């Protein structure tokens, strides 16, 4: 009897969660809510544009938050949800630049600058070292 009641109990616990609007209400699982929030912070509100959807009052931003929480609650990977939104609205909807041919300079220029800096400093130090050696004589 007890065993038969358990599923019923679980369903009745889940019911209030179903009635909640995920645009404004957190997911019950804190780990999933964390994933959802991180994603929301990096998705641009397409109405107000300067804001992420996590901090926007626009209806459409609420719709996107709901969609994100629903998909993550269903077990989707946050990056898949981001890719889905980029597929609808383009790269601009994501505050996080993607790694692809057009964005290559964005990722490579800092590396290149660091590399060039190291070479410059190394050469300078070498020359200075030689001078010191020279002056000691």
């Amino acid at each position, binding site marked *: 009897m007890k065993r038969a009641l358990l599923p019923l109990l679980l369903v009745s616990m889940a019911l209030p969660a179903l009635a909640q609007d995920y645009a404004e209400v957190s997911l019950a699982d804190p780990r999933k809510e964390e994933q959802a929030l991180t994603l929301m912070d990096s998705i641009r509100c397409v109405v107000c544009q*300067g804001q992420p959807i996590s901090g926007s009052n626009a209806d459409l931003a609420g*719709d996107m938050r709901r969609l994100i929480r629903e998909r993550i609650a269903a077990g989707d990977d946050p990056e898949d949800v981001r890719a889905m939104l980029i597929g*609808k*609205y383009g790269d*601009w909807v994501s505050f996080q630049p993607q790694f692809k041919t057009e964005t290559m300079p964005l990722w490579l220029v800092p590396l290149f600058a660091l590399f060039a800096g190291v070479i410059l400093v190394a050469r300078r130090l070498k020359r200075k070292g030689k001078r010191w050696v020279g002056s000691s004589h």
Partner: protein
Amino acid sequence: MKRKLILWVPFGLCAALFIAFFIGLKNPADHVIASKMVGQPLPEFDAAPGIPGQPGAATRDFKDGKPRLLNIFASWCVPCVQEIPMLIRLKDAGAEIDGLAVHDTTPDLQAFLARNGNPYTRIGLDSAGKAQIAFGSAGVPETFVVDGQGKIIYQHIGVVTEEDMPKLMAMLGARP
């Protein structure tokens, strides 16, 4: 001499960067977000009827060989009122227009259509914005042209005006 000139290069680069930032600050970006769904098959959606006596809007209605419009609108949207006469003219020319009412209610829709006229063959309620996101639509009004095979071929962002009529008529195969 050459070495001295090279020393100025980082300074010059920094100055150029700051000028670019300054110009960017003076001209804030105002992007029109075009849907990436243009050229793609219609997303799956099935929106419940918005008003009694008229069917809702769904993907399956767009595959009968006839191009048609999907107009994303709302009764609370002020510029949407402005384009209704254009949509009515398109309808009178033989075009079929399905409407998707975003964040709307049946009484509000009924009042809106009674006041402005009803150019729609079907009206679906998209109360949670799900279909709107599936279309990659960033606001109201927006109008999509869907060919007879269920592929989105064009997106018009904003109010449909007189200047847009010839293009839309041509795409829909309608005669003014």
